[in-house]
């Protein structure tokens, strides 16, 4: 009985840790926005579920109709959710292992095709 209890508690604790680690790579700007209490996305659950649709709609409007707004722009996602490497002050690519975008995509086994063409770090610094 005790052994079962230990196993149960271990599972519980590990799942709690897994939950707290979920947003380890949220991104510097995104973390500071979250810490300031400002709401950027209308609902985290909606943006998590719907971001492919939002991006698809936005991409068609931008490319085909020239509507260039900030809302749901991939540039905006990258600039907010990119992490900086503390040692060399360079941005990590958002599609690199452990970074914001790839973190989730890897877990749910959905390929991340945006970044075979789109820039993975904010702005042009190294070019």
């Amino acid at each position, binding site marked *: 009985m005790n052994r079962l209890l230990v196993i149960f508690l271990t599972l519980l604790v590990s799942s709690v840790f897994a939950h707290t680690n979920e947003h380890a790579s949220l991104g510097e700007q995104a973390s500071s926005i979250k810490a300031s209490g400002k709401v950027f996305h209308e609902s985290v659950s909606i943006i998590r579920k719907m971001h492919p649709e939002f991006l698809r709609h936005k*991409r*068609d*409007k931008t*490319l*085909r*109709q*020239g*509507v*260039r*707004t900030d809302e749901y722009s991939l*540039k905006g996602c990258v600039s907010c959710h990119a992490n900086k490497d503390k040692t060399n002050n360079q941005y990590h*690519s958002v599609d690199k292992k452990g970074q914001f975008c790839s973190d989730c995509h890897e877990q749910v086994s959905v390929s991340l095709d945006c970044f*075979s*063409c*789109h*820039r*993975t*770090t*904010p*702005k*042009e610094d*190294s*070019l």
Partner: protein
Amino acid sequence: MNKTLNRRDFIKTTSATTIGVVTVASGITLTTFASTNKVPVTNEKRWGMLIDTNKLTEADIDGMVSACQKEQGWGSELHSTGSQKPGWIKKVKVKDKATGKVSNLALMCQHCEEPPCVDVCPTNASMKREDGIVLVDKHLCIGCRYCMMACPYDARSFVHETLSNQKEHMPRGKGTVESCTMCVHKVDKGEVPACVTSVNSDAVIFGDLYDASSKINQTLKTVQSAQIRADLNLNTGVRYSGI
């Protein structure tokens, strides 16, 4: 001094104020739309370019090519061999066999009104925007390269290698076709294409072909200009004078 306002005066002043307010308000809305680009582009405009080959020097063309490379981030492909390398804008020499006159052209996508690339594209990736700019939707491009074969100007190129560090405004990737976008990201902000700004003289004029007050429209009315391969009836947006 204490004049009473009669009916006529009242109507006069109020209508004047209303007209004033309406004018200012419409001005404000117009500028807001222009700066944020919330409204889709329409066919009331058609963007075009006039290249004067008499004024355009070879150095100017080289400048245009490098300005395009810098703006759009092509040209530093490491693994592509000569013919595989992308070229969004090229320096082309044409010689009149009878007179021997040599002209240098800057040749890029001609942004045809009837683009053959759009006709042949099996996935609708090749497309023409309402304002006449011809683009490739890389989300739909399957890399079949029919458009490259259909284009009479050899304006399009294919990306043969995996790329990184693309420009933020110009996604480019392996397996897709690309060509001059007339710097659409700049045009949408009310700016002019990078190659046009790189030329110091007025050898290259960019503007709205339909707008009677635009410089390009007025120049086209006064100077003789030509389309390259005008016999194909594509009605190109890029025109040349002096050839």
